[in-house]
């Protein structure tokens, strides 16, 4: 007999693992009938997960952490027993802002450090001349987008809360807002950057992976009590999603995956704007004379580099940024709650049992790997990294207090 599970998702390329699990039969092989429900806001996903209309959800990685810290409307405790890939976001700026930045200082596209330096010069000049502050859009305060954009700006010497303005917009409206000049840039998940480029609204200047390589983005979120009461179902689901991630990660499946996601049930966008995140090609750059930099194989990684492992160091990094931007006060209790939201223990016990190579540690020092290395895993070899931040900083989860202290203004 099949167990029916309702899953909320937003129309984003990184919902691929859930969608392929249904469409390619990985879920039904494990006795699970996935009912995928497309939502219009993260608030809806959160609310429906909390009251039980959804058993599982495609969620922004900081969302379950924020919920457990009491920063969102419900008391329901959530856990993330699996990540849904690495990367998948980018920063897109309007054609006008790009021209202004390049006039300040030429830079290589997709080089986060150089692009940040050019933007910083432009912003400082604008402030001196009393020009209107630039506006950047992100999708949610508790999102990888908000935190990576702020990280990139700050490390480039721009104060995200006073030098520019950050506004919240739903992903499908970003490209239109950019084209209409309502915002100057945005940080959002694919395909909405590629959509912006295709509509002629702007260009992608940095991928999430160029800001922080192999960095976390979406997770599978479930209620803690549901996970405890339905352990067997959760385990079957994790196996199905792992198989799906494996399939999504294989280059020969990218075209089929793009077609699948393009369906009007899912992203309802042409496959041509979905494929770039999957194969690492970046739209638009060859049109502006930069074909050389137009490839980022790590744009979105659904499988390789332990992409579905829920590192507790990732949870703690998001927590450090929530503290940094004043969403929550830093206490050892809060840090523990944030860390324990991610459940590598569940992931490991389920997947090691089917001979999947799983990291033996729950955390790693983020930014320590400048290249790919083979690491200690429970069985076969597992490859990790690079995982560096563009500014060369290191996040050691064992030195959380010092990291938070170092980021104080």
């Amino acid at each position, binding site marked *: 007999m099949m167990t029916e599970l309702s899953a909320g998702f937003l129309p984003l390329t990184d919902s691929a693992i859930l969608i392929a699990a249904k469409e390619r039969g990985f879920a039904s092989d494990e006795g699970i009938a996935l009912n995928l429900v497309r939502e*219009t*806001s*993260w*608030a*809806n996903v959160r*609310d*429906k997960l*909390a*009251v*039980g*209309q959804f058993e599982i959800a495609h969620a922004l990685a900081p969302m379950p952490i924020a919920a457990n810290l009491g920063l*969102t*409307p*419900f*008391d329901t405790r959530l856990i993330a027993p699996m990540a849904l890939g690495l990367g998948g976001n980018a920063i897109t700026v309007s054609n006008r802002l790009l021209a202004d930045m390049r006039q300040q200082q030429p830079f290589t596209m997709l080089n986060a450090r150089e692009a940040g330096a050019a933007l910083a010069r432009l912003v400082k000049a604008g402030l001196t001349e009393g020009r209107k502050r630039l506006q950047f859009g992100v*999708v*949610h*305060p508790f999102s990888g987008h908000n935190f990576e954009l702020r990280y990139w700006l700050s490390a480039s010497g721009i104060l995200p809360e006073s030098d520019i303005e950050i*506004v*919240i*917009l*739903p992903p*499908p*409206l970003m490209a239109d807002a950019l084209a209409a000049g309502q915002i100057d840039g945005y940080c959002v998940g694919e395909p909405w950057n590629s959509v912006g480029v295709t509509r002629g609204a702007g260009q992608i200047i940095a991928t999430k992976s160029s800001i922080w390589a192999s960095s976390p983005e979406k997770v599978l979120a479930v209620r803690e009590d549901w996970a405890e009461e339905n352990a067997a179902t959760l385990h079957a689901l994790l196996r199905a999603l792992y198989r799906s991630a494996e399939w999504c990660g294989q280059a020969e499946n990218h075209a089929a995956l793009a077609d699948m996601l393009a369906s009007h049930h899912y992203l309802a966008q042409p496959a041509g704007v979905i494929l770039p995140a999957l194969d690492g090609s970046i739209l638009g750059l060859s049109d502006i004379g930069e074909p050389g930099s137009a490839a980022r194989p790590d744009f979105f990684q659904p499988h390789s580099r332990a992409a579905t492992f829920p590192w507790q160091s990732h949870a703690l990094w998001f927590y450090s940024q929530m503290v940094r931007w004043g969403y929550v006060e830093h206490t050892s209790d809060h840090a523990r709650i944030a860390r324990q939201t991610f459940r590598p223990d569940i992931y490991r016990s389920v997947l090691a049992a089917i001979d999947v190579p799983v990291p033996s540690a729950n955390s790693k020092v983020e930014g320590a790997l400048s290249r790919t290395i083979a690491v200690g895993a429970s069985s076969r070899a597992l490859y990790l990294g690079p995982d560096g931040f563009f500014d060369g900083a290191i996040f050691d989860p064992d030195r959380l207090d010092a990291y938070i202290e170092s980021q104080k203004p």
Partner: protein
Amino acid sequence: MTERLPSVLIIDENTSRASIIEAGLSAAGHTRVTVINEMHGIAAKIARHEPDVIVIDLENPNRDMLESIFQLSRAVKRPIAMFVDRSDTEAMQSAIDAGVSAYVVDGLRQERVKSILDMAISRFNAFSRLERELEEARGALEERKVIDQAKGLIMKSRGVDEATAYKLLRKAAMNGNRKIVDVAESLVMSARLLGDEGK
């Protein structure tokens, strides 16, 4: 000191639904009710109205943006906590089923918010029911049209009167264990494909 009724802001791009909620609240004695149908410049509008309670439909894609506005407004000492009562799962469930959500200012008495939300839920449900009925009525009209067309086709091809044509149609439906409208539809469709409009 008598307590004033809370001011309510309804954010709904569906103007007819917003107005039936507004009417319901007015009937219940709420005098300070404002409706916003247009999302443009929403932050300024919310700041101007300083609502105690905000009622919003769940399908609004701007919920994430609105919540961030509420968060910002906490920074300017106007705290807005979200939803009704965290412990009242049943109320939240029925609100979500109805497709409505509410945000309330911290410290507002629970029962006051509850009555507003209950009103919104019942009006949302009434509205969905109305829409469904309209949809069905529209469907029924369509069905009658198709059946009439099919009858016309049979009358013409078999040279029978209307009552007989209907009987034939009904018999075909019963034999095939199908609905009359389905038989009629396939008849009309095939007539169209064959280039005979049955006129």
